[in-house]
């Protein structure tokens, strides 16, 4: 089950991830982070497909994406170190 994790205090509230998500499941929190920005948060985690488009568009390295090993072979984007 893929999921993303938004680093709340790195987020600058730019909303580019909201725009990029094809599932439309990223929104902005009503709370502010330590810098005063409304940070991004996932509104419907069950529908995340691990496409990583949110992480690709994030300018602040605030999003980490987790998924199963099968999924990353479908997207030749992130090439982790071979063991």
């Amino acid at each position, binding site marked *: 089950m893929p999921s993303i994790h938004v680093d709340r205090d790195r987020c600058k509230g*730019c909303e580019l991830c909201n725009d*990029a998500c094809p599932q439309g499941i990223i929104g902005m929190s009503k709370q502010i982070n330590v810098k005063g920005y409304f940070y991004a948060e996932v509104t419907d985690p069950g529908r995340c497909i691990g496409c990583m488009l949110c992480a*690709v568009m994030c*300018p602040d390295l605030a999003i980490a994406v987790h*998924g199963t090993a099968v999924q990353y072979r479908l997207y030749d984007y992130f090439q982790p170190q071979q063991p």
Partner: protein
Amino acid sequence: MTTLFARPESMSERITHYCPGCTHGVIHRLVGEAIDELGIADRSVGIAPVGCSVLIYNYYNIDFQEAPHGRAPALATGAKRARPDLIVFTYQGDGDLASIGTNEIIHAANRGEKITTVFVNNAIYGMTGGQMAPTSMPGQVTTTSPRGRDPALAGFPMRMCEMLSTLRTPAYIVRGSVHTPQLAVQTKQAIRRAFELQMEKRCFTFVEVLSTCPTNWGMTPTKSLRWLQDNMLPYYPLGVFKDPDQQERGDGQVPTPWRDSDAK
């Protein structure tokens, strides 16, 4: 569960000073990922410009030099000639490369220096507060063109990829963009190829990346992506302008599309 996406190792953990939604952050990461994937971090030297990305060295764990405004290609030339084993790259904005530094970039390209230049084109001067850039669009309102850029007074925007690709010396010249995730991934592939060509000691490599400046364009980050798409893309076509593997093309001004299936 595996981590599918995380911070590249060549990048530091520091939170950037860039404005919210500034695509410098995206482009920094693309460069960092390329450096990581090619395993060249411990012999890379970056050359920082003057502009919004003057502090770029704070966001990487590699050696950096800080150049005077516009002179980064000259520093890169000196560093690469003195130490050809290092991977030397410059990262420059519109003012640095297309205004004060046009002479340096043209001659570095013409001499075929084996360096990589990442040119961030956001059609405005960010750091100094939103003045007109040589790459600003006609009609674009900036602090030094308050009634919109008038081509009769200021000329038309400069297309650096097209200009540099008229030089006879072989080079890899490509224009990409980061306003959609798909194009960001393609731009990363272009940046990666540019570094690979440097590793093979082939030619001068130049990657222009269209990007946004929400603060000085006066719009939200997501609106800026649309503005780029509607206003900059028609004038700055994406694609490969020059590739050392291609034969000399008679119509050198027309870029190769990303994939042949994109060709009309």
